[in-house]
């Protein structure tokens, strides 16, 4: 049986008294487009940082492609690509220099790194201004460059923290096309986003984290069925739309209890 792309057991991270991520058991199969959702401060970025080696877990284990993260960290990092929260760019390089640099750091030879750099810049429509420094790029251009850097070595797993944040519709279209091509080639994508419509359209499987704990995990159909079953048993509000599939947003809100009651409204807003 093939090892899951990502598997965590009891993954926990504390910041002093605060438990940011508690006992998370994730399972992401190879080739899945996996959406990792949660309200603000739920622990999404903390989890992704731990899965990419940017943050040490307080306890628990992580396996990436069957490799133990702590023991085979360098080998794991070779297999993954990351677009972290801060994009991890070097502002005083040009786009081409940055991609070339990243390619060399991932072990590509000079010729391959240069060839892929050229292709990626063309694909991302960043090739027009070769002398422009990354610091002079717009936010959307930086996102595209960060994604290009994350895929230059052909990773088996791609971790993306809010890749569509601040990106215009045209750039978002380019990014989505690229991600779908990667999935078609057998890669696994682990993505966090607040734009639930995008997650619903792209992802086959979803996990929801709330207050540091994993509260749902599975395919969209499984999550939908779970919410409907809970509604039937009275565990979540029962007013489900008749003869209509629940959207991911509805599933999400019902799972994390996001709908407000009248008592929670702000009195002074009237």
């Amino acid at each position, binding site marked *: 049986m093939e090892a899951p792309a990502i598997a965590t057991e009891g993954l926990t991270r504390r910041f002093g008294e605060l438990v940011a991520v508690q006992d998370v058991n994730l399972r992401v199969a190879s080739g899945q487009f996996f959406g990792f959702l949660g309200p603000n401060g739920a622990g999404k970025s903390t989890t992704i940082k731990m899965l990419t080696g940017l*943050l*040490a877990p307080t306890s628990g284990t992580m396996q990436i492609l069957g490799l133990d993260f702590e023991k085979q960290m360098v080998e794991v990092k070779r297999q993954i690509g990351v677009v972290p929260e801060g994009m991890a760019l070097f502002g005083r390089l040009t786009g*081409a220099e940055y991609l070339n*640099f990243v390619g060399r750091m991932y*072990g590509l*030879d000079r010729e391959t*790194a240069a060839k892929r750099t050229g292709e990626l810049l063309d694909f991302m429509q960043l090739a027009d201004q*070769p002398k422009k*420094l990354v*610091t002079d790029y717009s936010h959307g251009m930086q996102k595209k460059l960060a994604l290009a850097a994350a895929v230059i070595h052909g990773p088996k797993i791609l971790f993306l923290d809010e890749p569509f944040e601040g990106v215009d519709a045209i750039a978002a279209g380019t990014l989505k096309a690229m991600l779908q091509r990667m999935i078609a080639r057998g890669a696994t994508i682990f993505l966090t986003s607040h734009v639930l419509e995008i997650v619903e359209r792209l992802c086959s499987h979803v996990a929801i984290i709330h207050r540091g704990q994993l509260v749902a995990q599975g395919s969209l159909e499984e999550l939908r069925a779970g919410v409907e079953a809970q509604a039937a048993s009275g565990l979540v509000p029962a007013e489900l739309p008749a003869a209509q599939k629940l959207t991911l947003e509805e599933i999400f809100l019902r799972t994390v209890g996001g709908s407000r009651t009248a008592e929670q409204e702000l009195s002074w807003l009237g």
Partner: protein
Amino acid sequence: MAGLNGKPQARMQLAAIARVRGQLFVHSLRTTKGVLELFSRIVISLVITAGGLGGAVGMGAAAWFFVSEGKTEWLALMLWPLFLFWQFFPVMASAFTETLDTSNLLRFPLDYRSYVAVRLVYGALDPSTVLGGLWLTGITVGISVANLRLLPWAALVLLVFGVLNVLLAQMIFAWVERWLAQRRTREIFAVLFFLAMIGFQLVGPVMNRYGRRSSPALRKFSAEASPVQRVLPPGIAANAIARVANGRPGQGFVSLGLLGVYGVVILRALSVRLRAQYRGENLSEVRRDASGRDRKQGVRLGWELPGLSGPVTAVLEKEFRYLSRSGPVLLTLITPIFMLLIFGLGQGRDLGFLQRSPDLGFPAGVCYALLLLTNLIYNNFGADGGGIQFFLASPVHFRKVVLGKNLAHMAVLALEICVVWIGASLLFRPPSRAIAIATVAGVLFAAPVNLAVGNWLSLYSPKRIEFGTFGRQRASQLTVLISFGVQIIVFGLGAATMGLARYYRETWLATGVFLVLAVVGFTGYSMVLKRVDRMALARRERLTTELCR
């Protein structure tokens, strides 16, 4: 809407901001960077306090002497250095200056006057103002002890002088920040700043060369400079006090009025910037000509260096690209030559230090080159900012990243040594083979020691370098303190070794001692390098938090 009763009161807003400022100060004392950082803060605070109180006593005594001797106009001799310190300290010692980013206040419904008040009052709470205020108080006390009747007038003049200093510092700050906001103007400003600093370094030796009382050049300079200094704020303030002390109150009032005019002009210049900020100007990094598309070019191959792995070469190449895009760093390459020139100035019996000992020109220049490099070495990742996340997420051992950076810095040092050798040979004479070898042996000791401590501090106490801001810290206080200590030890040992060799008239002795010390230095360096991976893993949270701000 209930509770929103018309315009918010300015007093309430200022009180709220004052409270936030106080809370920020209290929270800043709760450092999360460890005991060493706290210790360095305490030491630096003690040094500043001692400097403030000691300076106040010294200046007070000098003021008492001048007024008692009837040379009140000589107060300018104290007001000038005080004035220059007040304006330049925030630039020179940005590590000790925490500034408030008042642009954050723009989202609130503050009126323009409140905004200006906040900028002036809370922006002025820095060490230079505290020290300047203490020293002015000392001078006021000194004047009144010598002549009590002068107290109210001296206090008024010096108060106006102090306010003028605060305004001028704020004005410079606001304008410089405007120029630093864009890369091109930032580079130009850095070059000008560098030249100004070099110019200041030349003042001492030039005075030494031409500064004999009998020298006609000095008399000419004094005759020309005296009227100039009298129409500038420190000279005017001194004159205002002197004229009243000499029984010419009318002229004193005119001088005070002139000081006031300066204040108004400075306030006006400051107001231009503050108004632009208040209107929400956007000083983005984007080049103005960005719309014009560059010609599409092919992607160049990365560097390849024999004996170095791909990742190490990539880091080395990246470092050189960063350095080549930093005008000030390039200028530092020629700074040691300027220093040789400065130390070489002198004539007649007062020959410059390096003219008397021309053989020391090469080692002196190399020492200076090494000192300049500490800026890069002790905060290795400061310029990388968010790029640190890439280093941590990449499949490369962190020691290779650090090694690449160290090699880049050592290549710069090697280049500097060549430049210094050429400069020293042209300015004085080529160093003897024994001196040259001893110097290189000294570098073999000093460089690994600095690299070892620099690597450790870069991971232990990183500080993001903000290219677009002025007066923000470029290194942590801990880094400043420790690097200072390391230089004292390294250069102390170097000087002692060279002194010993000169005493026994055996330069090769210095080479031998330096080589032994170099073995110790390299051992320490390799020990730190071996631990870098573990240190980086242990400190990754601190690194990303600090550098990705």
